[in-house]
């Protein structure tokens, strides 16, 4: 894992969440630290059997959050004009 220098912030319902981008063995994960008392969320991009990409929580169990936060992270990298 790298030291996590690739940090940025995203706007979530409870305020600004800190996002750390890490690389583990060449695979990118994002660790999200929320302003409220919500446990940090780790998420990554994955591939469905039909080859579609999706966001997933690591470990399993927080899929809805992963999809919502993943969408915000994607917007950070590809801001709407």
């Amino acid at each position, binding site marked *: 894992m790298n030291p996590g220098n690739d940090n940025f912030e995203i706007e979530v319902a409870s305020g600004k969440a800190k996002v750390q981008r890490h690389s*583990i*063995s060449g*695979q990118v994960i994002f660790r999200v630290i929320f302003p409220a008392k919500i446990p940090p969320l780790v998420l*990554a991009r*994955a591939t469905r*059997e039909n080859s579609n990409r999706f966001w997933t929580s690591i470990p*399993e169990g927080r899929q809805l959050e992963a999809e919502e936060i993943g969408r915000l992270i994607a917007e950070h990298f590809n801001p709407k004009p």
Partner: protein
Amino acid sequence: MCFYNGQKVTHAEFIRLKQLEKKVANFDFLIHQLQIGFDYGLNAVLKPNDEKNDFDIVQMEWGFIPSYLRTREDVLKMRNGYKDDTGKFHPPITTLNAVCEELLKPGKIYKDAALRRRCLVLSTGFYEWRHIYPLNKRTGLPLKTANKIPYFITLKDRGYFFMAGIWQGWTDRSTGEFVESFAIVTTKANKLMEQVHNSKKRMPAILNEDFAYEWMFSDLDEKRILEIAATQYPSEEMDACTIAKDFRSALEPAKPFEYEDIPALELNI
């Protein structure tokens, strides 16, 4: 068919995500490189749970400890060799590797583990020695003593990979110490490894993700165990580079090191 977070994914994707899961959970453990050296130290091993639907990344001792050994002293005697009461020397027995062709032979210490306790050994690369015999300047014939050149072998485009392993729990009868130990399954060398490990012409059984999944989770018959154990990873998907002879004590053991007058490996194979 596999599901991760309710999403239908392939076996390969499932195992990648589960592995990522373990890595995230074991942050401190996984900041270290997972190279495979040649000692009896601890290594990262993927061990299936009892239901064979998930796995843990655990640390196991490399060097399979047979159940008939009673104490750690017996283990050291086996590994280092010893003189018995009559002064007769018993040579060391190495259990770092399990030869795939002999895994299931009757009486072999690995048989029960191969049938019931298969695991995957995580690696980012491994070391092997190439024996090069310099020519005698006077006669032009090869010298009897080889110049041993260490190599670090990796897979192209893969930061880590799985080697087939077998494991066993063992308890020291005198202290109660419990350890899990493993051996790496070896197979015949492919064209690249025939050149690098040219003294023994063997290599670890490196498994692709589908084979890795099957090796760890499926109920396999003996024929299939031997088939997977004999897997020869393709040469063209592997890399080998020379490293310093003192790599074991180096800060960066896998750092490439150039030697003069070393015949190049034939990579166009």
